[in-house]
């Protein structure tokens, strides 16, 4: 709250409607109070409590007149404060702001929503943004009127010209006539809005075949300049029957638009001020991301918000391509006074726009959709409001269901409703991707199981890309016939004794898997030279005869690995098999999962075993075995610590980091909420119909809107989205989110919501309130902390004492805690320990000039009981 507002608030409490306050330069307070409270008091006694109010607000005691009603009458002093003040100029607006006043909500007789497009400086694509938005709103079914109030440099009439006849008069002429001409029964107004010569014309959108109405400024010429110069702007808007209000009323009666898009004058002049300060129900401010724009825009946004509670949205335009653009945006962001979660709309430089003389520019429409979506969101929220009010909110909350689902049910019975493919899914299908890495909980095993056990479901989401591919589990839970933890230990010993490379082992193991799953492989093995191999496989590994892995199998597998001749047969067998697959135009994928469990972690041979597998894959590729492909699902930190020859060949193209991006996260939230409740699904579909096939394509804005009935769209009094808030709070220090955290959060939020009061204060446009979500966040954090403790048992002692740290801390604090807890228990260095904590997303390094060295990720603060440092966002 600014100091003037604070003082006004205190005075209103103490002297309701008994004072007149203004504040001049240097915080000079001009105050007149007329109150019976001053009866029988000396000047000093009257002044004392008021002085402290002024000082508390950080203002200067100026001219303070304190009267009893009788004294005021003697002095002829009266109060002049009025409640309904609308600023008609920047000067008035600033004066209202500096004296702590706010403008009341304007009530109009028509329901047209006025949206002002403003720019502090010109040439930033303000009018283009407005026109592109007009077309998008029209296509969304809205009746749109564009009003050109850039009267000193009108452009709309050139960009969207009148087709039926030559432009003669416009808004300026209409207002001039209404303000300056005399009317009686013999002299009626000549300038009309509609009719053959009406100033309003329409252009048709070729796509939707719907009209966009245009109110041009007027035909530029001597008459236009004369009429414009005699208009007294203040009196165009001051009273209910003033010319502007007559214009709006007539517009409503004759055209019934839903939305009026006003193109405002740039800078701090009269017309721009009037449009923004007097008319805007909503405002967009376009600016080029440069410092010379930032100061003015910051001031105007602040003014609009303080005076009328209008959250003006920023459009950065046009942003140059590449690094230059990124740098400009990064540099200007801090100067605009945006809150952490606040978004701006970015319009990249687009040559079609720059060179276009015809609107809309279809190829660039998508850039402008956030503007239209922002406006449409508000109308869909109003719709949610009606629907939730009319149905039973409590029943809807009850109907939600967020059961803990294991991977098996997600992939089987609940697949259609719940399975959410992430943006990475498509890349997962790429032959060239050999390693799929990710944190625990990011869905590696879910994908492995989907491909190995639910191939039909996998094909549903793969758009035909799995048609000629046979997928085998080369190692993992999908096949019980496999060596596990202690067996691998034994294998390792044997390999060591025989000085055999792990590569040979993985080759032999792959041959066994293929033999057991692909009957056609047996045909390949019938070649005379491969007979010794075939006989061993038939005798020891026949699928029907051998279902449980035993010592015999370990011995035979080791033999195939250590016996050079047999291993060479394995190599040849794979080559022949590849050839046969090639002939049939087929491919076989070998999938490896659970290696983090079965190959002893931190053992001296873990590196050798895993790097052997990687080298086997690389070797197969070098042998041109392009029809046998591999996918290894591996925990991210294990991959990072893995060192092997040719790791450099496993770059971006060969490995895929599985991550839940923001839109994946929103899609899952939507699936979870509509998937568990038929009534909520009905409600959500009435607000924003989102078909199954559209969900995976829906963009961030659409998803936020679709989730609005669940948890609201924006946080109260902030220009920040709830969806974004939830996402940020469930993200760890390496920008990872976990699907399970979302289920935990929603489940807990629902429980809290059902226990909360459902009185009048309950929101009518969404189901889960912020308090409920906050408690859900705590539950999700506890769940994640438990998971991380389970995953990293070597840090148990550290985790037990981590609450001695604060959410922001110095390196020294961490080092002390490390010393105290786990320093001596392994040969890991402190640097290694810190690196590990960063890798698992628990902590992140602060910037160089920060007071603290590290921060605990939001996601883990509650669960570990870490004390949050004041100032860090909750």
């Amino acid at each position, binding site marked *: 709250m600014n100091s003037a507002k604070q003082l006004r608030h205190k005075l209103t409490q103490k002297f309701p409607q008994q004072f007149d306050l*203004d504040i*001049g*330069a*240097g915080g*000079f307070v*001009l105050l*007149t109070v007329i109150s019976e409270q001053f009866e029988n008091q000396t*000047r*000093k006694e009257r*002044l004392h409590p008021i*002085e402290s109010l002024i000082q508390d607000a950080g203002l*200067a*005691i*100026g*001219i*303070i*007149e304190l009267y009893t009603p009788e004294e005021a009458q003697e*002095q*002829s*002093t009266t109060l*002049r404060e009025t409640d309904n003040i609308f600023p008609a100029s920047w*000067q008035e607006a600033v*004066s209202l702001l500096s004296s702590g006043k706010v403008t009341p909500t304007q009530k109009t007789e028509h329901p047209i929503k006025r949206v002002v497009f403003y720019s502090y400086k010109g040439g930033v694509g303000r009018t283009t943004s407005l026109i592109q938005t007009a077309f998008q709103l029209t296509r969304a079914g809205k009746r749109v009127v564009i009003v050109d109030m850039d009267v000193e440099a009108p452009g709309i009439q050139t960009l969207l010209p009148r087709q039926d006849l030559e432009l003669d008069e416009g808004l300026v002429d209409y207002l001039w006539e209404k303000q300056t001409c005399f009317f009686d029964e013999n002299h009626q107004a000549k300038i009309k809005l509609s009719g053959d010569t009406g100033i309003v014309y329409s252009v048709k959108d070729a796509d939707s075949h719907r009209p966009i109405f245009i109110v041009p400024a007027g035909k530029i010429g001597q008459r236009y300049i004369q009429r414009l110069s005699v208009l*007294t702007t*203040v009196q165009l808007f001051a009273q209910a029957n003033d010319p502007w209000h007559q214009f709006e009323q007539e517009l409503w009666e004759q055209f019934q638009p839903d939305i009026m898009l006003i193109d405002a004058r740039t800078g701090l002049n009269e017309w721009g001020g009037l449009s923004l300060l007097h008319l805007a129900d909503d405002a967009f401010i376009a600016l080029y991301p440069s410092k010379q724009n930032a100061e003015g825009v910051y001031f105007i946004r602040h003014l609009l918000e303080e005076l009328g509670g209008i959250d003006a949205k920023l459009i950065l335009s046009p942003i140059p391509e590449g690094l230059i653009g990124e740098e400009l945006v990064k540099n200007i962001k801090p100067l605009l006074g945006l809150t952490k979660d606040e978004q701006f709309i970015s319009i990249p430089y687009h040559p079609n726009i720059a060179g276009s003389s015809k609107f809309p520019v279809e190829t660039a429409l998508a850039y402008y959709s956030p503007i239209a979506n922002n406006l449409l969101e508000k109308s869909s929220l109003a719709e949610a409001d009606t629907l939730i009010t009319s149905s039973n909110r409590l029943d809807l909350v009850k109907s939600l269901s967020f059961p803990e689902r294991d991977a098996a049910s997600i992939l089987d019975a609940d697949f259609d409703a719940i399975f959410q493919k992430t943006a990475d899914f498509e890349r997962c299908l790429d032959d060239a991707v050999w390693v799929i890495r990710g944190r625990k909980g990011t869905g590696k095993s879910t994908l492995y199981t989907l491909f190995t056990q639910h191939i039909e479901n996998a094909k549903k989401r793969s758009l035909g890309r799995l048609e000629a591919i046979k997928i085998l589990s080369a190692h993992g839970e999908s096949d019980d016939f496999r060596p596990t933890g202690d067996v691998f230990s034994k294998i390792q010993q044997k390999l060591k004794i025989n000085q055999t490379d792990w590569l040979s082992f993985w080759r032999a193991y792959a041959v066994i898997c293929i033999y057991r799953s692909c009957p056609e492989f047996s045909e390949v093995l019938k070649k005379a030279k491969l007979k010794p191999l075939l006989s061993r496989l038939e005798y020891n590994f026949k699928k029907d005869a051998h279902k449980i892995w035993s010592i015999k199998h370990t011995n035979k597998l080791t033999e195939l690995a250590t016996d050079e001749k047999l291993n060479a047969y394995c190599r040849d067998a794979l080559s022949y098999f590849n050839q046969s697959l090639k002939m049939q135009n087929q491919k076989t994928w070998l999938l490896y999962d659970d290696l983090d469990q079965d190959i002893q972690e931190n053992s001296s041979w873990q590196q050798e075993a895993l790097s052997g597998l990687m080298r086997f894959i690389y070797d197969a590729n070098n042998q041109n075995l392009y029809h046998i492909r591999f996918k290894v699902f591996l925990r991210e930190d294990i991959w990072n610590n893995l060192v092997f020859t040719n790791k450099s060949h496993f770059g971006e193209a060969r490995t895929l980091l599985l991550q839940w991006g923001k839109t994946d996260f929103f899609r899952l939230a939507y699936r979870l909420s509509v998937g568990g409740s038929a009534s909520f699904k009905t409600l959500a579909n009435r607000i924003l119909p989102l078909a199954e096939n559209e969900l995976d394509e829906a963009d961030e804005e659409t998803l936020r809107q679709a989730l609005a009935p669940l948890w609201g769209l924006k946080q109260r009094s902030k220009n920040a989205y709830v969806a974004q808030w939830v996402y940020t709070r469930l993200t760890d220090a390496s920008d990872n989110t976990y699907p399970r955290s979302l289920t935990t959060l929603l489940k807990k939020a629902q429980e809290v919501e059902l226990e909360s009061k459902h009185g009048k204060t309950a929101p009518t446009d969404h189901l889960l309130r912020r308090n409920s979500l906050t408690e859900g966040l705590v539950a999700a954090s506890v769940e994640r902390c438990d998971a991380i403790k389970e995953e990293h048992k070597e840090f148990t002692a550290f985790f037990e004492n981590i609450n001695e740290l604060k959410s922001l801390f110095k390196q020294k604090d961490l080092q002390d805690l490390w010393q105290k807890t786990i320093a001596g228990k392994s040969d890991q260095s402190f640097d290694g320990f810190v690196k590990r904590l960063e890798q698992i997303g628990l902590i992140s390094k602060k910037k160089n000039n920060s007071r603290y060295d590290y921060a605990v990720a939001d996601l883990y603060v509650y669960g570990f009981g870490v004390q949050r440092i004041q100032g860090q966002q909750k």
Partner: protein
Amino acid sequence: MEDFTGAYIQRKRDALALLVLQDNHSVTVFHLGGIAVECYLKSLLIAYHRLSAWKHKSLKPNDPLFDKPIKNPSHDLMEAIKNMPDLYNIAMTNSEFLNHLKVIIKPLGEDSSDYISLRYLAETTASTEEWLQSFNYVLGWLEHNREAVL
């Protein structure tokens, strides 16, 4: 209607004449000086709204008080300024003027009487030097902005 211009000139002369006398005439100086400013403001107010009598309606076009009755602001100097919105807007941008005006209104400080009630005080030791600076500034500033608002 009262002759505010004439009264302003004469009261200013009275106050300045008392200032140069050997004896302590401070109370009267503050009192008459305040009245001089009051007279100047009233003469300005009448000219601003083209009034021929108090309570007549303002004839100043495009002014927020246009067509509204203008009352005699009595001894309230700020009220007189507020009744001239153009002048008031300029005044509010200048903290130096506001602070000097405060000295004219309450020459003996925040807790004491204003320049009118001061006449019942026998005498004061307060300095007239600082007051004179404020007096000259306020009248000079009003004169300087007169043209802009009339």
